[in-house]
């Protein structure tokens, strides 16, 4: 009997606003414990939250970028639970009136993963265990989060991962978060169940927490899928519960069952007023949306004729795509730029981080200048490639690395003269070629290249030589 996986994701994303959601404290990561705190974010008696409107803007941007409807009227609610890292014993979140609803993300297969809702909330502090003691660091308390919840539309581990990757990329493009899984600025919980293929009804689900990389996520889902299938196959039932992925054992383990599920006693946060979003607000934010990865990809393939695989590589890194767009705006043939980027430049940006950050000494203007030299025939492809290597190494402009003579180029007549001279100077080779030894042409071409100090376009020269010899 074959089973299929059914999953829905809840993704928490830390927003990269400068200040926290309800106070003016910085959201900077990595400060000394309890230094980025104030009476409001440690919930001292009598303090009240003040909503950072930028958080609302960022969440709406996320909603617009994932095709959501934006609620004109929204509100904040209290989610009550007791934990030492939650200084008010409630988290200010959104319950029944989230900011964004009914969106979707399209996978490369064309399948849509529907987004139920996106809401804003505050992060909690964190517990630090040291030398047998437990301490609380409230620096993270009040850092703004959005939670993006999908419908149970995901049917495979690959779809789950592609969804998160797509989501991550969109968030990077709109610049609302740095979405780093390892640092916790993107955290995923997966609701997973299994059912027999062809069944209409969903199985009982388990919620898996604590997967802080794509690798762990894939492993955790695989483990959990098999665990649930095994349970069903052996006639047992899946229990609705929250499970945690243990990175040491590679297994998921039960955290709390349905009976122990929190009763959050949600109710409206009386210290905050209704969040109103006007059509003008939405229009203003829509205006701010950059071209999204999917749109860029389509444009590169359709308008520029760039192979989809190359286009995908460029779109994968927001800064690379912006770099590419900048170069393209200053040259004639976008394909030349994409070839250089996917080739030599990616080779120079050897790590993911380098590509992400575009840690490059060659600016888009410098690359465009080089390509313009090539396009105007002042240098040939070979020279362009070797010059780019030098540019990547030294950070110098092409014009600094190439001499006047290098950039003099060769017109049709000059090339013809050089070819005729080479033919005259190598009668033996010409004879050999005429008698069928094609290799002999290399010697003549070599003479042309030497005479022109490499400035000749080898392909053009070869073509001309054949024409002259066989005429």
């Amino acid at each position, binding site marked *: 009997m074959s089973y299929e996986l059914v999953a829905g994701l809840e993704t928490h994303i830390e927003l990269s606003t400068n200040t926290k959601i309800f106070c003016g404290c910085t959201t900077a990561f990595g400060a000394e414990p309890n230094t980025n705190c104030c*009476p409001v974010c*440690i*919930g*001292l*008696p*009598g*303090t*009240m*939250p*003040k*909503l950072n409107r930028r958080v609302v803007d960022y969440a709406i941007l996320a909603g617009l970028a994932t095709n959501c409807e934006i609620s004109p009227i929204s509100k904040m609610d*209290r989610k*009550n639970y*007791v934990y*030492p890292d939650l*200084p*008010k*014993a*409630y988290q200010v979140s959104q319950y029944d009136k989230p900011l964004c609803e009914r969106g979707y993300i399209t996978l490369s297969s064309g399948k849509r993963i529907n987004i139920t809702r996106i809401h804003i909330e505050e992060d909690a502090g964190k517990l630090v265990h040291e030398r047998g003691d*437990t301490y*609380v660091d409230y620096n993270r308390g009040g850092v703004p989060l959005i939670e993006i919840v999908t419908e149970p539309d995901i049917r495979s581990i690959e779809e789950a991962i592609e969804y998160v990757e797509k989501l991550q990329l969109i968030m990077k493009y709109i610049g609302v978060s740095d979405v780093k899984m390892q640092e916790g600025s993107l955290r995923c919980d997966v609701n997973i169940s299994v059912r027999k293929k062809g069944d209409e009804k969903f199985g009982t689900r388990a919620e898996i927490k604590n997967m802080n990389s794509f690798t762990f996520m894939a492993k955790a889902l695989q483990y959990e899928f098999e665990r649930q299938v095994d349970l069903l196959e052996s006639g047992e039932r899946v229990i609705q519960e929250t499970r945690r992925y243990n990175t040491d054992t590679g297994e998921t383990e039960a955290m709390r069952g349905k009976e122990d599920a929190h*009763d959050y*006693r*949600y*109710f409206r946060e*009386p*210290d*905050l*007023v209704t969040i109103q979003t006007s059509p003008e607000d939405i229009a203003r934010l829509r205006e701010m949306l950059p071209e999204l990865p999917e749109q860029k990809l389509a444009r590169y393939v359709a308008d520029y004729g760039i192979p989809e695989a190359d286009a995908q590589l460029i779109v994968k890194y927001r800064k690379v795509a912006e770099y590419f767009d900048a170069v393209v705006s200053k040259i004639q043939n976008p394909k030349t730029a994409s070839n250089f980027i996917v080739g030599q430049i990616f080779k120079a940006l050897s790590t993911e981080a380098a590509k992400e950050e575009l840690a490059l000494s060659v600016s888009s203007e410098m690359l465009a200048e080089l390509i313009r030299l090539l396009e105007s025939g002042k240098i040939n492809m070979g020279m362009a490639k070797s010059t780019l290597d030098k540019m990547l190494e030294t950070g110098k402009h092409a014009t600094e690395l190439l001499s006047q003579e290098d950039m003099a180029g060769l017109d049709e007549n000059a090339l013809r003269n050089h070819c005729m001279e080479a033919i005259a100077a190598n009668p033996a080779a010409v004879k050999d070629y005429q008698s069928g030894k094609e290799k002999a042409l290399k010697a003549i071409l070599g003479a042309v290249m030497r005479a022109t100090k490499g400035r000749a376009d080898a392909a053009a020269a070869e073509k001309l030589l054949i024409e002259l010899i066989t005429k």
Partner: protein
Amino acid sequence: MQRNESRIRRLHDLLTRKELSCTELTQKYIDQIESDNARLNAYVNVTPAQALKSAQEVDKKLHAGEKLSLLEGIPMTLKDNISTEGIETTCCSNILKGYVPIYDATVWKTLKAHNAVMLGKTNMDEFAMGSSCDTSCFGGALNPYNQAHVAGGSSGGVASAVGGNLAVYGLGSDTGGSIRQPASFCGLVGLKPTYGAVSRYGLIAYASSLDQIGPITSTVEDAALVFDAISGKDEMDSTSSGARETTADKLNGDMKGLRIGIAREYFEGIRDDVKAALENAIKTYEHMGAEIVYFNLPILKYALPVYYILACAEASSNLGRYDGIRYGYRAQSYNSVHEMICKTRSEGFGAEVKRRILLGTYVLSSGYYDAYYKKAQNLRGTIVKAFRSAFETCDIILAPTVPMTAFELNFTAKDQVETYLTDICTVPINIAGLPAVSIPCGFDAKGLPIGMQLIGNTFCETTILKAAYHYESEKYAEIYKELDLGVRL
């Protein structure tokens, strides 16, 4: 001296005419507290050093010939749930003993900027939950008229202090009547402003959607002056909007054509002497040219359950933070964080607070939410609408503040529900977010004051204060002659 002359103005004149220095004035009050506080238990924390320091600042200004604002140098007090930087703020709860705020409540920041002289923090029911101040961990504040009776609650300490002349005025908070009821019990003026007129930032929350800070004073004009100083939009309180206008400069004029509404339900089940005093007051208003309009407000019977459901629900959440981790009381022995939190709360909170936390937790729990909290929220909307339509036919509503006069000590211990019932006249106002002022309108046979409540439409503080001022001017000779307690300057 006309009795309803503003005390604040009178002291201000004495100060500016240099008839006495602010330090002398402050010292008189400190001495008075020293001699009378043991009897009244109004203050739980007296801060003479802080008061004298502020007084010296005022004297420096006087000496330099600078002008003083009206509230400058006037000795006053704050209820112990208003956060004061560097001064212990306990809400009269064991769980907050030793808690010293690191920031000032907005109202205190404002008054500090006026060089207000704060004499200390006053007694209250624990976390403002109670009607007689007896849930205070320091024991209750007593009525300045008769110490066999309570000062009322929850702002009992403020009323006891102002009534006993241990402060010129004080700020209390009113969630279901906690300013108006003790003002009524102590023969004072107590103003509960429109929800949002005064910033709540720094007021330790009981029920956030109902809480409001306001003054307790000896005269209506004083209440108006203090209200004008503390009202305003505050960036730190998103729910604040500030008052629409100043009030103290608009108290004169006449009562002609003022439509006073009487909701019949308000006069059912109240004590006869209270009813008689209120009926006399109505006659006085008629005599002054006001028009009396009678109507029914049947929805009032739901106000009490709505109040206790909503207030307890919010309290259960607001009080969740007292876990012993960051400040205040922490249990001595425990084996786990969970146990520490449980023991801290079990040992730190008093019985009434625990009762309301349990009630509130219950009404918000899944399975009960719809039956209680949601229903109460819906009814709240209905009550708001009922008042809105009542104000189409009248300008103010006149009602008793409390159905009786100050309880005898330990009255509340007998029957909890009966105690809750004493809030019946005041809670609808908080539910509807309206302004209301309680002023004295007579005495019972024991000589304890009777209060009446003038209720206004939202942001109509001027209308109710003006009506209160006119009544006070008209009746001061008979109502206030008996009120002259203790030292007068």
